[in-house]
């Protein structure tokens, strides 16, 4: 019932992605768009980096006191007339949500975008229980009608192009005139708005995620640009919030710090359009809002992460900046990662949640260029945590045998300077001589994996160690 996991086949997934021309066309727009917008937003706010430190510190403080903030949050939700449910794992979370829906006799539920919902495979479960889930975020709606998983945590349909969307709308919205013009993106948006407006008004239950939970007031917060999650938690008679336990923050001041870095890091906006703070069900004198309010707090392996260095990963506020800046994500897209969370944050989180046995490939899908850590709004040392998983993979003998033997030979040579220096020096000279004509190699023995998709540059000058030695003696004299 849970989302299918193809992470163990990452290499095959990546190869298919590289050969997928429409996907490559869509991916070519990821970097230029997101990176430029984030940089522009950062440059407009001199305090941006200081706010990132502040955001990191708030999350560290909260995680160190998480038990107490969870208790405070629960008490405040109850005080406001709402309900809090704790779920140890995905199955329990699905069960809680389904029970609430069944008790209300719900036939359709509208949904705001929620990665936790993807993580627990909620939609399939609801369908199996005879309840129709309707995704209302435009991107989520697109992938729902295609039967796909999101390929990005804030832009779930970033792998699609306009023509694919048009074809899907014609396939699914068969009650609309077939001769209608859908060539412009505005026409597609207007059609989705019309289709979903009726669903919003008819839904029995609204399910949203949470960007933050505020312990001070018992408030859940979602951030959207479309207004879909906001309608989802305002119109139906029951509002269910699905949140993992690290979403807690202490106070409204703390959440304001985090909101200042969230939108800027994600989309480069000064602030997202809608930030909605929900506290309990509608009040006696209210004329709208849900009559019932439930928060489902999911653990699903996160509490165990608090014990070691992976605690740092629980600071993540799901802005997507790490994948927006990741050369590997740019090349293969989100689906190749094979589960719910792609990119650098997914490479660290996925082994934590589904196990290193299934997730071992993902921490290896990194060049360790470090851009993810450079842009992370809560300063998660993503390369360090990926290295942590690589070490675990090696320790548990999950690394393929040729790699293990290769590493063994390398470590034998590299630890013996009298052997390493002349060996690398000789290899460099030979390669430099052989590649003298072109300055690069189109094919090279033992390096076919590299040269198949790109040239290997011919070395120039001495080895690094020789150059280093020369520089040092030059400086000393």
């Amino acid at each position, binding site marked *: 019932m849970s989302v299918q996991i193809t992470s163990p086949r990452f290499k095959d997934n990546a190869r298919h992605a590289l050969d997928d021309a429409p996907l490559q066309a869509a991916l070519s727009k990821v970097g230029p768009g997101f990176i430029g917008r984030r940089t522009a937003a950062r440059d407009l706010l001199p305090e941006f980096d*200081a706010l990132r430190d502040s955001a990191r510190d708030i999350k560290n403080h909260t995680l160190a006191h998480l038990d107490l903030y969870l208790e405070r949050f629960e008490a405040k939700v109850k005080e406001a007339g709402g309900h809090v449910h704790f779920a140890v794992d995905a199955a329990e979370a699905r069960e809680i949500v389904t029970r609430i829906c069944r008790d209300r006799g719900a036939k359709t539920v509208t949904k705001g975008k929620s990665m936790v919902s993807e993580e627990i495979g909620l939609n399939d479960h609801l369908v199996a229980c005879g309840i129709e889930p309707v995704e209302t975020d435009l991107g989520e709606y697109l992938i729902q009608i295609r039967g796909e998983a999101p390929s990005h945590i804030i832009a779930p349909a970033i792998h699609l192009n306009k023509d694919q969307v048009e074809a899907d709308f014609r396939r699914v919205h068969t009650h609309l005139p077939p001769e209608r013009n859908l060539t412009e993106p505005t026409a597609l948006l207007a059609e989705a708005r019309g289709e979903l407006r009726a669903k919003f008004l008819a839904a029995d239950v609204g399910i949203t995620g949470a960007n933050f939970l505020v312990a001070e007031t018992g408030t859940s917060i979602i951030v959207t640009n479309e207004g879909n999650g906001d309608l989802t938690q305002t119109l139906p008679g029951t509002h269910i919030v699905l949140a993992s336990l690290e979403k807690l923050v202490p106070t409204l001041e*703390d959440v304001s710090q985090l909101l200042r870095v969230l939108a800027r890091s994600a989309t480069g906006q000064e602030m997202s359009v809608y930030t909605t703070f929900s506290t309990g069900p509608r009040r006696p004198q209210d004329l709208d809002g849900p009559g019932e309010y439930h928060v489902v*707090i999911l653990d699903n392996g996160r509490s165990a992460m608090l014990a070691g260095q992976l605690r740092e990963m629980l600071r993540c506020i799901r802005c997507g900046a790490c994948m927006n800046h990741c050369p590997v994500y740019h090349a293969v897209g989100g689906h190749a990662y094979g589960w719910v969370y792609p990119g650098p944050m997914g490479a660290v989180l996925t082994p934590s949640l589904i196990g290193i046995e299934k997730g071992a490939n993902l921490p290896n899908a990194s060049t360790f260029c470090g851009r993810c850590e450079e842009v992370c709004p809560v300063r998660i040392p993503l390369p360090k945590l990926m290295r942590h998983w690589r070490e675990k993979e090696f320790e548990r003998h999950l690394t393929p045998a040729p790699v293990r033997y290769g590493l063994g030979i390398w470590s034998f040579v590299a630890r013996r300077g009298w052997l390493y220096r002349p060996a690398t020096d000789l290899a460099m000279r030979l390669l430099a001589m052989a590649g003298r004509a072109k300055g690069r190699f189109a094919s090279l023995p033992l390096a076919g994996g590299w040269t198949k998709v790109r040239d290997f540059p011919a070395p120039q000058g001495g080895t690094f160690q020789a150059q280093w030695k020369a520089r040092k003696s030059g400086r000393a004299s």
Partner: protein
Amino acid sequence: MSSRDTVLASVRRALGVSGQEAPRRQEVADRIAGHPRGIIPARADLPHAEQIELFKRMVVGAAGSIDHLADPSEVPGAVAAYLRARNLPLSVLRGQDARLADLPWSSEPTLDVWIGPSDGKQLAGLSHAFAGVAESGTAIMVSGPDNPSTLNLLPDHHLILVRARDVVGTYEEAWDRLRAAYGPGTMPRTVNWITGPSRSADIEQTLLLGAHGPRSLHILLVGGV
């Protein structure tokens, strides 16, 4: 053991705590009671008149529009003018807010003013903001019969009355005002921060206005400094 107790025990085991440690409990209690401010952007640290100018610039920067009116009595005329300029029916839905009810609506006899929450059938809604935040051009709305939350989201055109004296520099100042109005640790059912009209970039990253919420956001800023 209930799942609640299982999760809390698991968190405590990982943190190496019992949950009973007095210094930890005190730290949490102090943080919530004191709700310390973190880094406050200097951009809104301005005299009030300049904060209002910043607010206006930021609203426009977020693709909203704004009219600055000297006096509340000009609001009915400005609402009617907004609707006429866009060829919309002269009809607007608002909540029970006395500050809206007391406006001289009779000065616009052709403008129909309806009262209540939205069911999605109205093209234009009018709400009164709790505050405006200069640093990002954000309007802060609180739910209740005075200004039902559906008005913020369902009409195609959302008009928000923001009094100039309710414009503050930062979010933190708005929280102080909210705590003064509702009591510490207490929130209305819904607080909506609204920064510009609804939008989506989910199709090929092309930014389009009017996804599910209002296609246009128009601020009626009222009063001097």
